[in-house]
């Protein structure tokens, strides 16, 4: 019981860092995915290629390699210096962005082309059509896969402990070696992750159901 009272506040400190990184990174990653998805669908070959190279590069390499590349690789040039938190956020964002790109592209393409035709025949521009007609419908359809990817990205943040970010996993490691209560500490850490992800799913379900009423 002692372990909980001494270690839990510190672990929750770590959770705050995890959530902070997650929220910023997932937001950036989503916006990145949206932009790249639009590039992928744009009627310009070069843009399609740029988007494809980005997505393929991220999907074809392990997260941890991407993290080391951004944190150690980019810092090795001494042109810009990324601290570990920034590097962590950037990596999670870029990684999630690639998966979001594919999710959003598929979502947009799943909308019947009659929708675009109806909107354009009214006189809406291409971007107005995207904004008012296609994306709102596509997002509803994408919600389950967006939730899924968000959960994966949240779990990926635990790998950021290897570059010394004081997230939940890192604090778990510190507490485990400080208290020798290895079993209890990792159990608590696991339960905390589980609860957060569970709450995230409930939130997603709630949002989905609100949209379904339409």
């Amino acid at each position, binding site marked *: 019981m002692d372990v909980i009272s001494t270690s839990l506040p510190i672990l929750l400190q770590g959770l705050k860092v995890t959530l902070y990184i997650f929220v910023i990174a997932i937001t950036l990653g989503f916006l990145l995915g949206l932009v790249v998805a639009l590039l992928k669908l744009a009627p310009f070959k070069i843009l399609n290629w740029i988007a494809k190279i980005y997505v393929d590069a991220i999907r074809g390499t392990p997260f941890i390699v991407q993290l080391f590349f951004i944190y150690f690789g980019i810092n090795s040039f001494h042109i810009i210096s990324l601290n570990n938190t920034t590097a962590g956020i950037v990596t999670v964002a870029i990684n999630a962005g690639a998966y979001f790109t594919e999710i959003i592209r598929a979502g947009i393409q799943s909308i*019947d082309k*009659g*929708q675009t*035709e*109806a*909107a*354009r*025949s*009214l*006189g*809406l*521009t291409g971007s*107005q059509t995207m904004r*008012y*007609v296609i994306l*709102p*419908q596509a997002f*509803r359809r994408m919600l389950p896969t967006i939730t899924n990817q968000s959960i994966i990205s949240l779990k990926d943040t635990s790998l950021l402990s290897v570059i010394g970010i004081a997230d939940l996993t890192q604090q778990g490691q510190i507490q485990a070696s400080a208290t020798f209560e290895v079993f209890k500490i990792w159990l608590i850490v696991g339960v905390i992750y589980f609860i957060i992800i569970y709450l995230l799913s409930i939130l997603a379900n709630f949002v989905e159901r609100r949209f379904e009423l*339409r």
Partner: protein
Amino acid sequence: MSIITVKNLRKSFGKVEVLKDINAEIKEKEVVCIIGPSGSGKSTFLRCLNRLEDISGGHVVVDGHDITDKNININKVRQEVGMVFQSFNLFPHKTVLENITLGPVKIRNTSKEEAEKIALELLEKVGLSEKAGSYPGELSGGQKQRVAIARALAMNPKIMLFDEPTSALDPEMVGDVLEVMKQLAKEGMTMVVVTHEMGFAREVGDRVIFMDGGYIVEENEPNELFNNPQHNRTKAFLSKVL
């Protein structure tokens, strides 16, 4: 006065030419019905009139604008040309009222209040006042199509294009939609209607165009065309559908 002039219009999908040298004039306030067998190019022709299809050759002049000119603001021209689709294409995430006000609010910068007032008037006109707050998923096919007509009319267009507006409807719903279209014709709307409803073409049409194999084979006043077709292909088609 011609409000639409089509000169030597050609349209190919890849190597397949589906419109071959189409020439046509549509006058203001005229109701022109297009008939013909499946695959003859009726929809493609109609969709070239607001450039929903890229035009491969020739000229299409709508309300004084040559829409084959790449520099023209096609969105501006489309505001004057309403279109109604076989499959309705209502926006399922928006209420009936929002479907109708989207265009006026976002394109014409009409205030929301004004746009809603007009939308409610149009809904009354198509007999659906009580459905303003419904979502398209809650409507029958005939109701959807009448909302789609109201949505197009909300832009206050000069021309209305209809692509088989009643083909996807249960028979008992067809009448309501045709009634709305008749009313529109009576009010002097310029209309181009691709249809299988020969009764409608005969009663409401000022002129009927018969298409086959990517050509306009024959065009005439409805009674002339139906009672006294000149070409064998027209005769063969009419003998099947009448």
